[in-house]
């Protein structure tokens, strides 16, 4: 980047002034760092979304000056989005938290303390709570942005040390339904294929995902594929809102929010009715199931269940622009294309029946055999850089231990205890609180100490005000470890400053089972420390406080290791070499040494270094591509579905009936509300809000209102609008646009201003299977308050 936007404006200003007095200016570029001036480039992954773009951080005289894409990387092929290009500006940002901060009561101001004092306090509070109120009175709430090493060591100390499974993370809010879907349909979590399928795909079915803004670099690959083959490649976008993703779509199915299950069942109906089923694939690899007991049923019973979803019936349920003929056409395209790829994200996962919605997408792939072949896949996109690698694989949710081991299975739990060298019975057999239950337990006074790492639930939980009240309780001690002040540091007792990306070393695992290493390039500012160091030191103090040698045992293998590289490496080695051995996410080949050699990383399973050095497994379950498919082969068929959750080693087509949203509009709250992301911001904007180029582009959130509704309600562009649900309210400027369908409004959720934090309005009903909340749908009423008003962007800037 030769010139920043502000520099450009300055030059324009100077040149304009010069033209007034007839002077020629000599404008020099001295003392200005350019990307090409960097004297050192350090390789890592992007800090932001779940695509896993590979980047290189440019340093000049040890200071970060630029980021560039890695050309040889199979994720981004050298491309980056604006966020990925600019996050280096956060590395030494003046707003960074640099000292531990403490206050005994939440109505007091914070004071700076030393790390010794901070860790003593954290240990004493957690130990006291365990002694007085039991092991389940403490909790850890982590993040899909924490490094795998961090999530792993946190959960190890919580489970084997403090003997509680109250280990959760924000991926519960975004990926849990996808996990449930993969496990129940394919018998194993995470996608079969990956991004490499994009360039071989002939039909993209994008549902409940604004890929263009939420995963821009991946969208570029999809767009390229479409534009290079405009006739051969079809793009179907199914979404109640017209988004930038819809622009490349051949067909945009605009259905009423919450009717996705009817649409997907109807596509299956057409596939069967028109004989588009891949009979051999079904015969060889699939069975049909229904109900909680997972009873096997016949194909005929499945077919009968679909009778309720003929295109005529489904079109009526779906509303919007959906016609029976459109459903038929889409089903035909899906089934007949040489290779079909489905992509989805929060629109499907954040539903009261998110797991079912995932199942129904997988159903279509199983019925048509659109799996395991080049270009065909059922690919759930992740929203965070390490939701897959750290939280799903590393044991970061209350019901799973590292390497996809359910807590409640005795054999697997004991395996973990043995591998850790702690006594059997140390890890409780019962899963802990899932996210909504965890914060409800905080509300109820059952959790007395909670550690929130690298995430801001005060802004990101649905029905946010309800859970903020709990976190504000004086009898719940809140530790927050993060890099910037957030809405959540505002309710903390102890704020611990952590190292940012490239200020520490560790692995992120992206959407496509790919683990990638980011190396430390610079020291963290002030006293900020990597989480792995913080947890190790905290655990040692906990062991003393509780006089419990087993807690010390949890971190013993990591004692004395240097925190920038040796410590995370030792943790990664333990996790991969011991815990993933013999599991479906076998990462033994993906050692730091191998990861440092790879321009991108390694896709698991990768049991050996030799195999990992070739990139790992591009397609799971395919013999010849996946070493575990060969190892676990039960017959001579080319695909082997060896996933741990299905004893019959087959794919399951599910009977899942249509179920609407938890809260549909009614006469009091007549509109649907949905929420989402804008390209320049990420999550709660604690990072992107501090990058001027991104913040200035979208300084505040607004509400999108369909022109028809705007007309009915007398709302004009820019007017201030009140949005109210049964839970809370927002006041936002209106954008009148053919985005959301009539009867629906849409709000971005990044804004930290209390008038514009839309999660104060959203609903916390959750999927009974995945426990993932239905952020994407609730009922609201809207009203014009006034004409346009000046709005000032807002960031929480102090604790």
């Amino acid at each position, binding site marked *: 980047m030769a010139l920043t936007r*502000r520099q450009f*404006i*300055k030059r*324009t*200003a*100077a*040149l*304009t*002034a*010069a*033209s*007034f*007095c*007839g*002077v*020629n*200016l*000599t*404008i*020099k570029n001295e003392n200005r760092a350019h990307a090409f001036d960097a004297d050192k480039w350090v390789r890592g992954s992007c800090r932001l979304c779940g695509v896993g773009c590979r980047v290189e951080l440019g340093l000049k005289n040890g200071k970060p000056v630029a980021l560039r894409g890695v050309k040889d990387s199979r994720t981004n092929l050298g491309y980056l989005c604006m966020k990925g290009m600019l996050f280096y500006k956060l590395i030494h940002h003046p707003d960074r938290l640099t000292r531990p901060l403490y206050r005994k009561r939440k109505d007091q101001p914070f004071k700076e303390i030393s790390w010794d004092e901070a860790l003593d306090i954290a240990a004493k509070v957690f130990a006291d709570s365990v002694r007085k109120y039991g092991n389940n009175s403490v909790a850890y709430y982590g993040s899909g942005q924490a490094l795998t090493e961090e999530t792993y060591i946190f959960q190890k100390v919580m489970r084997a040390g403090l003997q509680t499974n109250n280990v959760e993370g924000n991926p519960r809010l975004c990926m849990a339904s996808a996990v449930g879907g993969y496990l129940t349909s394919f018998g194993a979590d995470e996608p079969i294929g990956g991004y490499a399928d994009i360039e071989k795909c002939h039909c993209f079915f994008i549902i409940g995902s604004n890929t263009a803004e939420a995963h821009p670099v991946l969208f570029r690959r999809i767009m390229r594929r479409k534009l290079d083959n405009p006739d051969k490649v079809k793009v179907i976008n199914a979404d109640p809102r017209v988004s930038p993703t819809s622009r490349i779509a051949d067909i945009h199915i605009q259905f009423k929010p919450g009717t996705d299950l009817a649409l997907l069942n109807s596509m299956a109906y057409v596939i069967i009715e028109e004989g588009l089923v891949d009979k051999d694939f079904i015969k060889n690899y699939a069975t049909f199931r229904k109900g909680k007991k997972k009873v096997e049923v016949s194909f005929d019973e499945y077919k009968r269940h679909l009778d309720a979803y003929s295109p005529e019936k489904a079109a009526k349920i779906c509303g919007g622009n959906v016609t029976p003929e459109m459903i038929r056409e889409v089903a035909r395209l899906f089934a007949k294309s040489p290779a079909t790829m489905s992509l989805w994200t929060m629109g499907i996962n954040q539903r009261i029946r998110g797991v079912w919605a995932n199942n129904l997408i997988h159903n279509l792939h199983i019925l048509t055999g659109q799996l395991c072949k080049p270009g065909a896949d059922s690919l759930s996109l992740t929203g965070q850089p390490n939701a897959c690698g750290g939280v799903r694989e590393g044991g970061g949710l209350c019901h799973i231990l590292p390497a996809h081991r359910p807590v409640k299975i005795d054999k697997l739990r004991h395996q973990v205890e043995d591998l850790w060298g702690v006594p059997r019975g140390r890890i409780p057999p019962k899963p802990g609180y899932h996210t909504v239950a965890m914060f409800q337990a905080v509300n109820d006074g059952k959790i007395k100490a909670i550690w929130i790492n690298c995430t801001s639930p005060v802004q990101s939980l649905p029905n946010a005000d309800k859970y903020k009240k709990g976190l504000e309780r004086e009898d719940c001690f809140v530790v927050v470890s993060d890099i910037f002040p957030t809405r959540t540091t505002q309710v903390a007792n102890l704020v611990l400053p952590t190292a940012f990306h490239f200020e520490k070393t560790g692995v992120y695992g992206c959407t496509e089972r790919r683990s990638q290493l980011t190396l430390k390039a610079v020291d963290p500012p002030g006293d900020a420390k990597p989480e792995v160091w913080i947890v190790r030191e905290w655990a040692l103090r906990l062991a003393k406080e509780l006089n419990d040698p087993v807690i010390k045992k949890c971190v013993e293998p990591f004692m004395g290791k240097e925190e920038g590289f040796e410590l995370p490496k030792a943790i990664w080695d333990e996790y991969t070499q011991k815990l993933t051995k013999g599991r479906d996410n076998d990462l033994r080949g993906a050692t730091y040494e191998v990861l440092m050699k790879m321009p991108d990383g390694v896709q698991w399973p990768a049991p050996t270094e030799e195999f990992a050095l070739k990139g790992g497994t591009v397609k799971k379950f395919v013999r010849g591509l996946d070493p575990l498919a060969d190892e676990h082969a039960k017959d001579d068929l080319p695909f082997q579905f060896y996933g741990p959750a299905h004893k019959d080693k087959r794919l399951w087509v599910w009977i899942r009936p249509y179920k609407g949203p938890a809260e549909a509009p009614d006469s009091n709250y007549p509109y649907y509300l949905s929420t989402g992301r804008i390209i320049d911001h990420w999550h709660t904007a604690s990072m992107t809000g501090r990058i*001027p180029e991104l*913040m*200035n582009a979208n*300084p505040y959130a607004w509400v999108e209102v369909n022109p028809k509704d705007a007309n009915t309600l007398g709302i004009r562009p820019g007017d201030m609008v009140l949005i109210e649900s049964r839970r809370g309210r927002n006041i936002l400027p209106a954008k009148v646009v053919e985005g959301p369908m009539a009867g629906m409004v849409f709000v971005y959720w990044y804004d930290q201003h209390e008038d514009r934090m839309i999660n104060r309005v959203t609903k916390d009903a959750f999927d009974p299977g995945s426990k993932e909340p239905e952020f994407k749908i609730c009922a609201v009423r809207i009203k014009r308050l006034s004409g346009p008003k000046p*709005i*000032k*962007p*807002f*960031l929480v*800037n*102090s604790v």
Partner: protein
Amino acid sequence: MPIGGFVVTVVPGRKDEVKARLSSVKGCDVYEEEATPGNERQNDAQIVITLDTETSDAMEALVEDLKGIEGVITVDLAYLNVEDEVVR
């Protein structure tokens, strides 16, 4: 975060002195003229500067300050870019 381009008119003969003073003002960038061979001092009375301040009010105040510098006759705005101001 406004950015302004200004022409500062000075008492003839005092240009170098004023330039030196302006260079030390925070948020003020002074621009060098191109030296044309044979015409070393093409403009003896005017200086091009840009001001970059947190708020519009701060910019107005700064302009008033600059007007008070010994040797400055006027500080004239030629270009102004204003963006949303971030509240902290």
